[in-house]
């Protein structure tokens, strides 16, 4: 939140709320416990508006206009309606589409049920051997965190239209992947599979890319992917990097308290 901004009063569903000018509307709604379903919003990334689920109505001079709550920045006098018949209808259709796109996603199913949507009229994606388990809704969050936050760019959208998937180049193991797992952490539908086998981490969804793990200097247990450690070292002060020890949280605690 931008703390230098002014506090403004906005209206959501006829109730007044305080917010900081310039804040993302969806953030305000979340804070005030106003439910707006959303899949592709992540506060550490720039507004994107891919999933279209967070649609709300903005009222200006008595007229309403639909827009995505994750891209609207609040300003004085902003008036929003989040549950109008139009909005609900829009969400229902979208949820039907998502049921077809990600037929195996429990997250989508649960979201849909809340809107009374249990079936889809659209052709369900046929899922066989999908590394994303028939759960991906192509929201793009994983691709964006991998690019914009981790700077690895290990994955991307492949193909076009109904054939679009998220994967590694040539659908092959990709050494650019650091195995950090940020993608899995942000994925709204838990589509990304990661398997830790001990000395290796296998990125199941990313063409089975193997990543080497490092051991704790204290107890010898596996603590994390080696490329992440190297990346961290390269980004910090060299003196600190020198002192940085590869310790698991338990051994670190022991060392600190000694």
């Amino acid at each position: 939140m931008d703390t230098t901004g002014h506090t403004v009063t906005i209206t959501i569903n006829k109730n007044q709320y305080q917010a900081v000018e310039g804040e993302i509307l969806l953030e305000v709604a979340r804070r005030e416990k106003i439910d707006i379903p959303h899949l592709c919003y992540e506060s550490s990334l720039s507004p994107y508006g891919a999933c279209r689920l967070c649609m709300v109505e903005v009222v200006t001079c008595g007229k309403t206009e639909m827009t995505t709550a994750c891209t609207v920045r609040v300003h004085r006098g902003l008036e929003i309606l989040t549950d109008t018949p139009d909005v609900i209808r829009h969400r229902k259709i979208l949820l039907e589409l998502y049921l077809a796109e990600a037929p195996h996603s429990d997250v989508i199913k649960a979201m849909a049920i809340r809107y009374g949507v249990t079936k889809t009229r659209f052709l369900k994606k046929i899922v066989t051997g999908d590394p994303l388990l028939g759960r991906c809704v192509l929201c793009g969050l994983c691709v964006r965190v991998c690019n914009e936050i981790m700077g690895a760019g290990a994955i991307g959208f492949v193909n076009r239209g109904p054939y679009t998937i998220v994967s590694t180049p040539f659908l092959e193991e990709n050494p650019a992947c650091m195995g950090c797992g940020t993608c899995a952490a942000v994925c709204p539908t838990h589509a990304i599979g990661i398997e830790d086998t001990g000395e290796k981490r296998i990125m199941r969804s990313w063409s089975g890319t193997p990543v080497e793990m490092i051991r704790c200097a204290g107890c010898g247990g596996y603590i994390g992917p080696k490329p992440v450690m190297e990346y961290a070292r390269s980004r910090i002060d060299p003196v600190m990097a020198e002192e940085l020890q590869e310790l698991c949280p338990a051994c670190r605690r022991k060392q600190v308290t000694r």
Partner: protein
Amino acid sequence: MDEKRLDEIISRYDYPSGRILGILRDIQVSEGYIEKDLLRLLAEKIEVPVSRLYGLVTFYSFFSLQPVGRHIITLCMGTPCHVKGARTILATLEDLLGIKGEEESGKYFATTADNQFTVVIARCFGACSMSPVIQIDGNLYGYVTPEKIPEILAGYGWHP
């Protein structure tokens, strides 16, 4: 394509906008396809993740990742051409050339055994008024019917 030639292509584009697509286009035009290792090398040189380049190459039907034959036949499958019988045209082409392509990941691709012809599919050339339309090595043919195809192909060295 060797590295020198790749560097030369890269050097044609020193402004950021349209750079990546420009380079990829030039490679496609010069080689007829974009080889895997070349794409990797390019990514390294222009400091763009391979995933990004791969995404672009698989997005546009203009690019091919497989080697192509001597002549490229692009068949339009845009809605107007489809309605005017593009499917039949494709069946005729497959018949005459003895190929069976697969529409894998939304892209159709088939090359004859003698490497003379590659058939690919595009969506709308913007010549819908002449639909159905095919293009061979950049030459456009409109109002195509199955009967006309042997003659058109003969112009590119095809014989029954």
